């Protein structure tokens, strides 16, 4: 059974999710700058793993956003 939250609880949850998403976005920013630096220096080893890590971060972020919208509808 899916639990329905009060508005105060929803606000707390969305704030927690916002904090996680913000952390992941900062991580992605770091990944992008490090990858660009490696690409310009001709180091090819890190490019694909960094891209995969960034895709995983985005997937997590998207999942959390979908959760926020589903929670709001309940």
């Amino acid at each position, binding site marked *: 059974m899916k639990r329905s939250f*009060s*508005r*105060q609880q*929803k*606000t707390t949850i*969305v*704030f927690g*999710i*916002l904090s996680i*998403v*913000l952390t*992941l*976005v900062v991580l*992605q*920013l770091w*990944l*992008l700058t490090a*990858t*660009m*630096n490696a*690409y*310009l*220096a*001709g*180091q*090819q080893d890190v*490019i*694909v793993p*960094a*891209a995969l890590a*960034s*895709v995983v*971060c*985005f997937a997590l*972020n*998207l999942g*959390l*956003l979908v959760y*926020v*919208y589903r929670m*709001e*509808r309940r």
Partner: protein
Amino acid sequence: MTTTAPTRTTPDQLSVPPDGRPYHDQPQWRNDFPIDWPQDEFVARRDFTKFLVLTSFAFVVGQVWIVLENFARRRRGRLPVRHIAREGSIPVGGAFVFSYPEAHDTCIAVRTGERTWVAYNQKCTHLACAVVPEVAKGSLHCPCHNGWFDLQTGTPTAGPPRRPLERIVLEIREGDIYAVDREIRA
């Protein structure tokens, strides 16, 4: 004619829409622009999260672009051999600018001795300003942010640059100077 005052449908609800129906039956704009402060806080955080997810997607696009650029660079294979000057036309300590491998890749060659040359991509590795040779100081100087590179090796010696300049490999055949390759270094 009597009218009934709208009533709250949930304990969370502070204000009541004019038609009295619950919020989930209201048009979307009424949910996106709430009157109640607590609901407004929720919507503001939700929308900021949405904006951050969009930013996250933009970062993924950037990463994929780097992967594609790297793939294209690897497929390009060996660079062309290009004649850039006659050896005798430049005095010792002199320099000239040429393009290699593409027309927009401006490079600089310096004659450091009777039989010795060095050539680098002219883009500073900090923010891509053009570097200029300071042969007397044995350096290449970027005037934009006062970056310095060693003339013999192209490695950064002072200022903001952290990576060495791209080195252009030269060959001298019967008095003609050819650019034959490019070395991107960490």
